[in-house]
């Protein structure tokens, strides 16, 4: 089957893979508690110069606290935070070479756009002409020339977001912190702004640290994503690693849609593993050292990696029979739920790309179908 198509990304920027690369920001065993709640727990993470890094997780996972500790609004209870090799402990926010774009933008309502952007520059004792020149430069950068005299309440949401960005960039921070930068924008504007931010980051070569709960945002923009769970990092990696090689069930389920077949390892022959699950015997091809028959294991399968066939497939791949349970037409693809035969009757999500405008074999509710997927399509999750 034609699965070996274009789509995977060949990245040239990957300093984290280079043992000689020197990180710009380092969180070393950082812990932060609020009362009984541990917001960040013994967390270690390195950010490299020029990296666009996203902290991704549900609310309360500690991502915002981690970023606020770098900005200096919170102090770690233990561990240290280094920026360009310097320990930031005891340095108040106004002396740190980081700048933040706030979730609510936090534009000063009593100041014009010009004064908002100039605010940080004025704290540095810059000459009046230099400030004006820098503000003009920033306004041009975020495409807001001519808006200098406006007040924040005379701006649209997207314009406010740009002013907040310009204000944070004006002081040339070493690291730009973005707290849910697109959260307040509507969908269309969010997509546009997303690519603008990426271009801007590439142009400036700055290190960006973004906090978001939106996986699409993180996947599209970041060089690397840290998926966070209850104050810890569940996995760090490039978006395609997070998606195609989730380290555990939490990551697999948090990022994207996934089907999970729980079972027991039946046999291990080299890299070929067979798992006995209520939905049948499944084969997958994955190096997994130390795996032995009898252990609990799950096979995780992304919806777009499954084919739906009307006849029983032949060949070495996996297959399972069932009937169409639900159909959700989404335009670019159709999300089909198939109820597998057997007592468990597990529902499996299948994403069918709508590559033609018309098809000769449309599917309908209650149709008998076969599911088919490659031995390489599944992800082995232990335990």
């Amino acid at each position, binding site marked *: 089957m034609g699965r070996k198509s274009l789509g995977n990304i060949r990245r040239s920027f990957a300093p984290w893979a280079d043992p000689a690369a020197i990180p710009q920001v380092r969180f070393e065993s950082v812990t932060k508690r609020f009362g009984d709640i541990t917001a960040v727990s013994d967390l270690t993470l390195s950010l490299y110069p020029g990296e666009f890094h996203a902290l991704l997780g549900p609310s309360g996972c500690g991502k915002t606290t981690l970023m606020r500790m770098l900005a200096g609004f919170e102090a770690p209870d233990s561990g240290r935070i280094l920026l360009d090799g310097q320990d930031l402990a005891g340095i108040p*926010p*106004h002396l740190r070479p980081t*700048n933040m774009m706030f979730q609510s933008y*936090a*534009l*000063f309502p009593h100041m014009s756009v010009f004064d908002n952007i100039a605010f*940080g520059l004025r*704290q*540095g004792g810059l000459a009046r002409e230099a400030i004006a020149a820098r503000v003009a430069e920033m306004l041009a950068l975020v495409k807001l020339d001519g808006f200098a005299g406006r007040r924040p309440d005379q701006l649209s949401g997207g314009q406010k977001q740009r002013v907040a960005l310009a204000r*944070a960039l004006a002081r040339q921070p070493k690291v730009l912190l973005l707290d849910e930068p697109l959260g307040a924008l509507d969908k269309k504007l969010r997509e546009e702004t997303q690519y603008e931010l990426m271009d801007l980051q590439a142009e400036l070569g700055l290190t960006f640290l973004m906090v978001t709960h939106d996986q699409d945002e993180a996947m599209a923009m970041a060089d690397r994503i840290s998926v966070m769970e209850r104050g810890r990092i569940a996995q760090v990696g490039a978006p395609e690693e997070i998606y195609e090689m989730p380290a555990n069930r939490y990551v697999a389920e948090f990022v994207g849609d996934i089907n999970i077949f729980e079972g027991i390892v039946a046999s291990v022959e080299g890299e070929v593993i067979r798992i006995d699950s209520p939905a049948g015997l499944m084969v997958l091809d994955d190096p997994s050292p130390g795996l032995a028959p009898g252990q609990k294991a799950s096979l995780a399968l992304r919806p777009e990696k499954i084919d739906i066939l009307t006849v029983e497939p032949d060949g070495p791949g996996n297959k399972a029979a069932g009937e169409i349970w639900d159909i959700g037409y989404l335009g670019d693809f159709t999300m089909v739920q198939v109820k597998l035969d057997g007592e468990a009757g597990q529902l499996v999500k299948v994403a069918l790309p709508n590559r033609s405008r018309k098809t000769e074999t449309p599917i309908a509710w209650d149709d008998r179908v076969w599911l088919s997927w490659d031995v390489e399509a599944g992800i082995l999750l232990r335990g």
Partner: protein
Amino acid sequence: MRTGTGTRSWPAPRWLVVALPYAWLLAFFLLPFLIVLRIALSDTARALPPYAPHWTGWAEAWSFLQALDLESFATLVGDSLYLDAYLSSLRIAATATLIALLIAFPLAYAMASAPRRWQPALLILVILPFWTSFLIRVYAWMAILRPEGVLDALLRGLGLIEEPLALMNTETAVLIGMVYSYLPFMVLPIYTSLERLDRSLLEAAADLGATPVRRFVSIVIPLARPGIYAGCFLVFVPAIGEFVIPDLLGGPETLMIGKVLWTEFFSNRDWPLASAVAILLLLILAVPLLAYQRFARKEAA
């Protein structure tokens, strides 16, 4: 009866909604003001009420109007006592307002910074004095400030003073009384504007390199400005015409316009002059108020 979507359930004309407050102002502000103005333009007389001329009907309207004059206003301008009293009132009210502001701002700031669950209790503490009569609270200050009173006893007990402080019946006592009485009117509006202040603005300012002092000067104070102005007016306006506090706590040399007005009215029974004093006071207060309103409108625009 409601018959369709386009009909009103109650035919409340919009003019009524607008007219009611105006009718109120007309009946209880403009009309009394005109009466006072008319008395101010009359002459004193041994009569009841003690001024002339009296309105005797439309037939004599012309002679009535002819009998009115500006004599009382001329006295106000001619006798330096009144000018001194106005200036002294302005000075005392302005001083009291400034002191109240200096005390109220940190107080309001602390209240607004306190944990949210404490704030209702702190607010109640600020308005708690209102549950006691104003007069009783001023009398209490007499007991505190009088020679050998509570304050003297306390300070002497602590060994801080030898001689009793001669505070009672001085301008200082008047200022203490005024600041004490009007402090809540300063605290509440400032607290309200500070409480609404978005904390992330202060964080943003810090993030952009502003020191704590700069954050206070360029973020906190400008955003609290409406509250500061409102508080200053709420203290300054009643303080300038205050009568009870200077009468009870002040001395013979404490000259305030409220006391002058009282003397003219009750001791000298010079109603026209007392009315003229009142009208001039009103004008003095109206000018800054109108100026403030203009400013507030411009700020809002």
